[in-house]
Each structure stands twice: as C-alpha cells, then as structure tokens.
C-alpha cells in the first residue's frame, strides 16, 4: 500500500535524494562485511583485507542507481497518471493467440535459418526440453495447485528407464518412450498416494524429499544405475529406423546415405530439434485438451477449493493422483528425450536445482498459462547462456533476474486465465451441431 501512496505523489528532487541516500546507507551496511572486508589465505592462516575503494564504488553505484531508477519511474508514473484511467477492453486472449502462432512459426523455421549454427539449435533444443517439462509440471502446479518441488524425479525416472531398457534389453528410443512414460506415471502415483492429505508447504517438502530419495538411490544403487558414473552410450533416436551416423553398420542405411546427402553432424542436431518440437507440441495439445475436459476442470476446481469439490461429489483422491500421474508421465517423456540427446546420464543431472528451475518456469510464466511457460523457459535458459560471456557473474545475474522478473510481474509473464467454456460461444457451437 505504501507503493500506492508513493505512486500518487510527485516527488521533489530533495525527496529523491533522501531516498537514494537511504539506499546508499543500506548498501553501506550490507557492503561492509561482504565488499569492504574479505579474508585471504596467506600461508595457512587467514588475514583480513580491506577494500574500501571497492566499498565506496559499491555504495556510490547504489546511490546513483537508485536515484536514476526513481527518476525514471517517477517520469513513467507521471505520464501514466496524466492519462485518465480508462476501462481497458481485455484483449489479452487475442494477443496471446497471435504471439502463440508467431512463436510456433519461429520455432519451425529456426533450424532453416540457423542450419549451420549448432549452438543455436542445440540451445533451442534445451529450451524446448524445459518447455515440455514446464508444460508437464504446469498440470500439477498451475492447474491442480499442488506444489511440487521434486518434479525432476520423474524426469530422472524417464531418463533412466530408457537408459536401462537400452542397456539391458537393447530397446530403442521409440520402443522405450511409452514404457518410460508409464513408469514415470507409476512413480507419480507412488508419490501421490502417501501425501494426499498434505497441503501447501508440507507437500513442497515431501516432494522435494522424494526427488532427493530418487537421486540418492540412483547414486547408491550401483548395480541398478551404475551409480555416480552414470550410464553412457545411450543411442540417439532414429528417423524411422534411419540412424544419424557417419558410418552405418554393414548393410544398413543411415540418414545421410539414404537421402544421398553428405554426412553432417548437423543433421542429427536438427532432427533432435524437430523431434522435441513435435513432442512438446503434442504435450501442449494434450494438456490444452485435458484442461477443457472434466479432469482438467476438476484440477482447477481442486486448486480453488478442495472442500467444495468434495461437496460436489468429486473424488478428490483420484483427481489429485491423476494430476500427479499425468504430470509425471510428461516429465518421463522429456526424460527419455533428454537421455537420448545427451547420450549420457548421471544422477548429477537430476538435482533439486533442476526442479527449482522447472518450477520457476511455471511460476514466472504465469501459473496455468501455456504460452507463459514458453516465454519463461526462453528467459531462464537463455539468460545463463547469454551470461556465459560474463562468466563468473553469470549465476549472480541469473538470480537477480529471477527476483526482478517476479517483482516486476508477480503474477507471471502471462497471467490471464482463459475460461474453458463460454456460454455464448458454446451456445452457437451447439446450434451448428
């Protein structure tokens, strides 16, 4: 509420100065122990080193930064205040549609434009994996409102299922895909069952614990998972049986020889890209359709009010379990793809940080919004990538960005909710039928 007051009041330069001075003072307090002082190791014992210059620079920068920031914000607000508040027509749904199609178009043409740029396509593939994971987790968190901090467990289950099916039985990607999905779904139910009665943050810690349990088991149960060494040489998916290899086995064709192309590593990269694009789009259609089905509405209703759901005769247990199972299954699919793309998996890829990133994608995107997930995945994957140029500042900037985006858009990047059914439109549709 204090923000509201500030917003209405045109600030004088003196006030702005005072505000910035206060910020500088806080910066000084925070800076003394961290920036101004440090300990260095001089031959086995620590000594304190002072860095007053750096501290000064830090405080000065805080002051200037705050002063300029406030000034700009005030300008913006004044301009906004000058305009009378008009009742805006909510055009978001149309806008979202347009952006959605644009993003789709861009993602289809991307490999054509960047056909020689391995990095771009590979990074885009990573983005799509996260998009798919985000869409999967969105079912659990965004729609059903169940906080899941251990989503990575299902991703791991999918990846390891494929890796193990391959290494023990020689199953291919396509054969393993469905089994791995089912396996992950089973794990989803396994996790869901004991925690049906938990709410909110209790759910969070238990799911987090579940993710850790899976990871610790993968690390320690060496006979099964090869422990921390991971499983390698996982085969890449083929295109209807055509592998992407330079030297196909005797008497078989590879993609390059079949189409009479010269072998290039890019073929596989592009193929993997389109594969995950298709998987992700299928996920999207699947989830979007589910949302308009009774289960989907039940998930949302559950998020809104569990007790009212019960009073409407809804079996809340089944609804929760179905959310966990379907979310887990989608995570499992993504896991299979991940294993196939990396060719090597180890427990290190399935840490809590990974779960946190996926959750951040869902929340930053705007819970329940499909396009929001895409935007958030783009931001969260590209930020650290772009940040590579800043090397050691990379993760610092990443953390800062996460906070800033949340503060800037607390509801997520795209936060509007589209009804699953409308009276008007439904009536006209019904009329046609």
């Amino acid at each position: 509420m204090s923000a509201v007051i500030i917003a209405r009041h045109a600030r004088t330069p003196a006030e702005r100065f005072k505000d910035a001075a206060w910020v500088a003072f806080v910066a000084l307090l925070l800076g003394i122990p961290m920036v101004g002082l440090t300990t260095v190791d001089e031959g086995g014992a620590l000594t304190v080193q002072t860095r007053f210059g750096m501290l000064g620079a830090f405080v000065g920068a805080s002051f200037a930064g705050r002063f300029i920031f406030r000034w700009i914000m005030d300008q913006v607000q004044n301009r906004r205040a000058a305009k009378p508040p008009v009742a805006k027509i909510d055009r978001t749904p149309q806008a979202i549609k347009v952006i959605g199609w644009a993003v789709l178009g861009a993602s289809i043409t991307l490999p054509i434009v960047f056909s020689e740029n391995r990095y771009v396509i590979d990074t885009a593939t990573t983005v799509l994996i996260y998009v798919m994971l985000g869409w999967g987790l969105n079912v659990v968190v965004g729609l059903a409102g169940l906080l899941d901090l251990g989503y990575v467990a299902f991703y791991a289950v999918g990846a390891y299922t494929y890796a193990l099916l391959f290494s023990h039985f020689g199953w291919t990607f396509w054969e393993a895909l469905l089994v791995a999905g089912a396996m992950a779904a089973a794990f989803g139910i396994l996790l869901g069952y004991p925690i049906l009665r938990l709410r909110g943050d209790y759910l969070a810690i238990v799911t987090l614990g579940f993710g850790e349990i899976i990871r610790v088991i993968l690390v320690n149960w060496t006979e099964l998972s090869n422990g921390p060494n991971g499983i390698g040489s996982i085969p890449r998916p083929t295109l209807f049986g055509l592998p992407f290899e330079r030297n196909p086995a005797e008497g078989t064709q590879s993609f390059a020889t079949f189409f009479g192309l010269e072998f290039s590593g890019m073929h596989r990269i592009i193929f993997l890209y389109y594969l995950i694009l298709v998987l992700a789009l299928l996920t999207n259609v699947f989830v979007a359709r589910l949302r308009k089905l009774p289960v989907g509405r039940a998930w949302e209703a559950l998020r809104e009010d569990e007790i009212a759901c019960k009073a409407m005769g809804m079996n809340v247990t089944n609804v929760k379990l179905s959310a966990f199972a379907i979310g887990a299954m989608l995570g499992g699919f993504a896991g299979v793809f991940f294993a196939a793309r990396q060719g090597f998996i180890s427990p290190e890829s399935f840490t809590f940080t990974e779960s946190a990133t996926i959750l951040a994608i869902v929340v930053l995107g705007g819970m329940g919004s499909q396009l929001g997930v895409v935007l958030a995945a783009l931001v969260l994957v590209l930020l650290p990538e772009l940040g590579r140029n800043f090397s050691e500042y990379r993760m610092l900037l990443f953390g800062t960005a996460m906070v800033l985006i949340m503060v800037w858009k607390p509801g997520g990047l795209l936060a509007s909710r589209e009804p699953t059914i409308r009276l008007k439109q439904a009536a006209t549709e019904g009329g046609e039928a």
Partner: protein
Amino acid sequence: MSAATLLSVESLTMRFGGLTAIDDLSVSVPAGKITAIIGPNGAGKTTFFNCLTGFYKPTTGSVRLAHPNKGEMRLETMTGHRVARDAQVVRTFQNIRLFPKMTVLENLIVAQHNFLQKASGFSLAGIFRLPGYRKAEAEALKKAAHWLERLGLTDIADVAAGDLPYGTQRRIEIARALCVDPVLLCLDEPAAGLNPRESAELNTLLLSLCREEGIAILLIEHDMSVVMNVSDHICVLNYGRKIAEGTPEEIRNDPQVIKAYLGEDDEDTASGEKAA
C-alpha cells in the same frame, strides 16, 4: 406429516473434545418438502449438516437416506464425496465456497464432474473429442444454462465467480448444487446477505424447486421471512438438542423457541413486516 420419510436421523451425537455440539438428536426429513432447521448461534446446525454430508464423522448415531432409486443408504458411513455422488445429498456452505477464479458457468459444469468424467471415458474419449463426449458436454451445458436462467445468472455466466457481489455468489452456490441433481438439497443460510426483495425471490425459488422439481430441501436459516414462509416443517435446535418441532405457526408461538431464539415480540419484529 404423511409424506414418506426421505432422511431419518437417529440419536446423532457429535463431540469436539469436551464440547457436545449435537446431543442425541433425532430428526426425520420428509420427501418433497421443505424442512427448516433453526436455532440460536452455535446450536449445532452447521455441524448437523457436516455430519449428514460426510464432512464430520458423527461420534454416535445413524443417518439413513431412503433414496428413491437406490434404496436405503447409511450416510454416516460414507466419506465426503460419496454422499454427494452416490446418495445425491448436496449442500451449500455457510461461508460461501465457490471456485473463485473460474467462471460461473465453469462452476456449474464442475458440479457435473462425475457425469462428464464417465462420458469422457475417463478422458480417453474426451481427448479425441468423440461424439459421445460432445453430446454429454452439450447436455451438461444445457443443464447449466437452465439453472443459470432460473436463478437469473445468465448475463454473468462468463464472469469469474469470485469477482461478484456477495448476494450473487449465494445464488451461484445454489445453482451449482442444483447441477448435481440432488435428491436432498441442504442449504446453509442461503438468505444471508440478501436484501428483503432478494429473500422473497429466494422464497419463490425454493418453493418451486420443491413443488415442481420434487427436490426435498433441508434449510438452515435465520431470516424468519424465509423460514416462516416456505417451510413445511421446522425443527428447532438449542445446545445440540431438539427443543421444538412443528409447523411454522406452532413454532412461532412456542414459548421455548421465543425465549431461546426469536426473542420477545416487540415493535421491531422483522418477520411480519419484512415480508409484508
């Protein structure tokens, strides 16, 4: 009272620690009629509803429903959702519990979850939008539209339920409960927050639900202009016990009820004037 008994509650007791909220209560609710449960604040009315509808497990006692199609059912043994789904005993809440971010129409469609879920082949048929499911959906929509119309909510069907005024939300809750096809509809203070004019409209609605659709109604209400005008039968609770039972006329003049609940008549008596 010659009508068949729909619900019979026998020696129901509900204790919370040392507090006895319902004390050896026996009530019978006739089919196709409106039965009101009244009583001072804290008498145990809402607790009684909670025991009927599976939200609380009563300490002792039995609740038997003579379901018109399914025979006798023991409600006290059924858990939350089964009371609504199988026994078709549906309730509203004293503190409104809508799905606030969903639209009014969606609220009404969610109430038909079980029917739709089956029709969607547990989503398998639904995901491919097979005709069977589409037909079911159209049917559900028709039912929702019907109740929206009856409760005057058609214009706001596509508005998020949580953004609507209190009185409107009350009506949505009733519409939503009706979408579950109740045999017995339990309303907890449906007129709270309605003005006299709206209460009168509610009266009309309740009467028509009962008389035309044959839905039995169990009503908790403090607004005497509603209770006295629509009830066929009134049951008065105090400290979890039944202190009186009878027609509105009998109850209005029952000295015990006046003392514990209605208060001495004075020039302020709302019941008469409000409905004038």
